[in-house]
C-alpha cells in the first residue's frame, strides 16, 4: 500500500494545527465558539498577497523564489506583516463588537455575532478581490522522492517544518511563561483570575492576537500549497472545530494532535473514498468524539 496519503495528511494536519490552536484558546478563554476564526486564515492569505502587490507597484519588486522554494525572504516578510495586520483586525473586532457583547449579554450572542462577522468578512474579501482563485507563484513545483515511495514538494516540506516549529514554540510559550499561566487561570475562572490581580482584558487581547496571527500564517501556508479564495478559511472551519474538540477544549497539544488526526483522516478519505466527501470526515470525527469522549483527548471537562 502506498503511504503517500499519510504524508499529505501530515502536512494538512500541521497547517490545521495553527488554526485549531486559536480556536481552542478562544473557546477556553473567551468562552465562545468563534465562527469568524476561519476568516483570519483567508484575511492572512489575502493581506500577504495585497502587501506584495502594493510594494511591487511602488518599487517594481517582484517576489522571487528562494532556492527550491516558490517564495523567498521578502515575501516571508510580507507574510509576517500580514499576520500582524490580521491580529490588528481581530483586536479591532474585539474592541468594536465582542467586548461590548461580553460586557452585557450571555455568551451565545457572541457566537451569533461571530457567525455574522464571518460571513461579512468573507463577503468583504469577495468585494475587494472577487472570488477568482489566486496563486502566490506561477512556478510549478516538482515533488522530490523522499524514500519509502513518498514524495513531497520543497514547499510542502518547508511548510511542515515551519508549522511544527511554530506549534511547538507556542506550546512551550503557553506552558512555561507567565502569559500561559494567566491564560489557564482565565480559562478556569475569569472572576477568580481577576481577584488575584490578573489583567483579564489583557489576557483576552493576547488570546485574540495569538489566535489571529497563527491563523494568518496557516492561511499563507494554504495559499502556498493550494490556492487563495475568499472561502478558503470558512471551508477549514469545521475541521478546526473538530480538531479542537477532539483534542480537548483549552489544550494546545491536544489541538495540534487533533488537527493531525483530522488531516490524516481527510487524506485517507480522499485516497480511499473520493475527494468530494473530504469535508464530511470532520463531522464524522466530531460525532464519534461527542458520543464516546465528549471532553476530547486532553480536555478537562465535557
Amino acid at each position, binding site marked *: 500500500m502506498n503511504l503517500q496519503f499519510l504524508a499529505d495528511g501530515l502536512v494538512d494536519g500541521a497547517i490545521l494545527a495553527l488554526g485549531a490552536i486559536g480556536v481552542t484558546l478562544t*473557546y477556553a478563554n473567551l468562552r*465562545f*465558539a468563534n*465562527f469568524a476564526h476561519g476568516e483570519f486564515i483567508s484575511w492572512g492569505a489575502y493581506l500577504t498577497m495585497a502587501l506584495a502587490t502594493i510594494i511591487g507597484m511602488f518599487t517594481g519588486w517582484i517576489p522571487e523564489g528562494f532556492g527550491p522554494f516558490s517564495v523567498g525572504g521578502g515575501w516571508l516578510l510580507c507574510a509576517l506583516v500580514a499576520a500582524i495586520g490580521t491580529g490588528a483586525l481581530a483586536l479591532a473586532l474585539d474592541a468594536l*463588537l465582542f467586548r*461590548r*457583547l461580553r460586557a*452585557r*449579554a*450571555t*455568551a*451565545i*450572542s457572541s*457566537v*451569533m*455575532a461571530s*457567525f*455574522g*462577522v464571518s*460571513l*461579512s468578512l*468573507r*463577503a*468583504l474579501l*469577495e*468585494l475587494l478581490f*472577487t*472570488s477568482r482563485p489566486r496563486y502566490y507563484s506561477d512556478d510549478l513545483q516538482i515533488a522530490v522522492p523522499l524514500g519509502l515511495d513518498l514524495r513531497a514538494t520543497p514547499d510542502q516540506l518547508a511548510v511542515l517544518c515551519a508549522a511544527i516549529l511554530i506549534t511547538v514554540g507556542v506550546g512551550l510559550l503557553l506552558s512555561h511563561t507567565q502569559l500561559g499561566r494567566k491564560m489557564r487561570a482565565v480559562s478556569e475562572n475569569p*472572576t477568580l483570575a481577576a481577584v488575584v490581580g490578573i489583567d483579564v482584558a489583557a489576557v483576552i487581547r493576547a488570546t485574540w492576537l495569538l489566535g489571529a496571527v497563527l491563523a494568518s500564517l496557516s492561511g499563507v501556508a494554504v495559499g502556498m500549497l493550494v490556492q487563495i479564495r475568499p472561502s478558503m478559511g*470558512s471551508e477549514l*472551519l*469545521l475541521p478546526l*472545530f*473538530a480538531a479542537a*474538540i477532539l483534542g480537548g*477544549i483549552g489544550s494546545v497539544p491536544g489541538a495540534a494532535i487533533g488537527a493531525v488526526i483530522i488531516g490524516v483522516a481527510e487524506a485517507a478519505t480522499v485516497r480511499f473514498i473520493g475527494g*468530494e*466527501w473530504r*469535508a*464530511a470526515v*470532520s*463531522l464524522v470525527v*466530531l*460525532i464519534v468524539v*461527542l*458520543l464516546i469522549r*465528549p471532553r476530547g483527548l486532553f480536555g478537562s471537562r*465535557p
Partner: protein
Amino acid sequence: MDHLSGWLAYVAQFSVLALIHGLSGLGLNLQWGKTGLFNVGIAAFIALGAYSTALVTTAWLPSTLQGAGVGIVLGLIVAMLFTGALSAAVGALTLRLRTDYLAIATFGIAVVVELSLRNATSVTGGPLGIGFIPRPFPMLADRPAWFACANLGVVAGIVVLVYVLLERLSESPWGRVLRAIREDERAALSLGKRASTYRLQAFAVGGALMGLGGALEAHSIGFISPDHYTATLTFQIWAMLVIGGSGNHRGVLLGAVIVSAIWSGTGLAAAAWFTPEAQAQAAAARIVLIGLLLALTLLWRPAGLLPERSRRRLTRETQRPPS
C-alpha cells in the same frame, strides 16, 4: 393590464417567499428566542425539508398521487417528520454538553448536507437539483398572477395557523418552562424540570418548522438546487430574528418582511445598476450590508424592533452579577 398583473404576481410571490422565510424564522424563534438554542445549520434543515417533499412528490409516490393536492400534503408531512427527527438526533447528541457544541454540530450538518446535495447525484440530482416539483393549483399554471395570489392565500393560512399554535404553546406551561430554562436553568432544575428534555422538544419542533418552510418554498417555486441552501440563507433567517425581535413571534414575521424587502430591493438595484461582471461583487456587498445591520442591532437594540413581551420584567427580576 399585463403590466399590472406582472406586478401583482411579483408582489404576491415576494410575500409568499417572505412569509415562508418567516415560517423558518418562527422555528428558529422557538429554538433560540424561546429556549436559547443556537442553530447554525438552518439552511440544512430547510434544504432537507425541500428535498424530502421534492423526492416524495416527484419520485417516491405512485404517479397518480404525485400531482394531486394529497401528494403535496404528504410531502409536507414527510418533510416535517424528517427534519424534526434529525433535529432531535442532533439535540440528543449535543444538548447535555458545552453550550456551543450544538452550534458546532449544526454547522457540521450544514456543511455535510450541502456536500451531499451536490455529490449524491443519484438521489438529489447533484448541482442541477430537482425540477418539475408539483405546484399547487395546477389549473392556474398559465396565469402567474392568479397562481401567486392563491398560493399566497395557502401560505398565509399556514403561517397564521403556526403563529397561533406557537403563541398558545408559548403561553402554555410548556412555554413557561422553556423560558424558565433559558432565564435560569438552575432554578428550573430545582423545580424538577428536566432541562435537556424540554430543550430537545423545542429543538425538534423548531427544526420541523424549518423543514416545513423549505418544503413550501419548493412547491411554490417548482424547482430546487443546492446553490440556494448555503450559509447565506442561514444568515438571512438569523438577521430576520435578531432585527425583528428575538423571542417575539410577531417580531420575527416583521423581521422576515424587512430583511426580504432589503434583500429583494438591493437585488433589483444591483441588477439594474451593475454590469453582469460586477453582479457577484454586488451580491457580496449586500451580505456586508445585512451583516452591518445585524451587528448594529446587536449593539444598539439587542431586543430587536419588537422586543419580547414581559421579557424586560423577567430579566430585571432575575438579574444578578455574572457567575
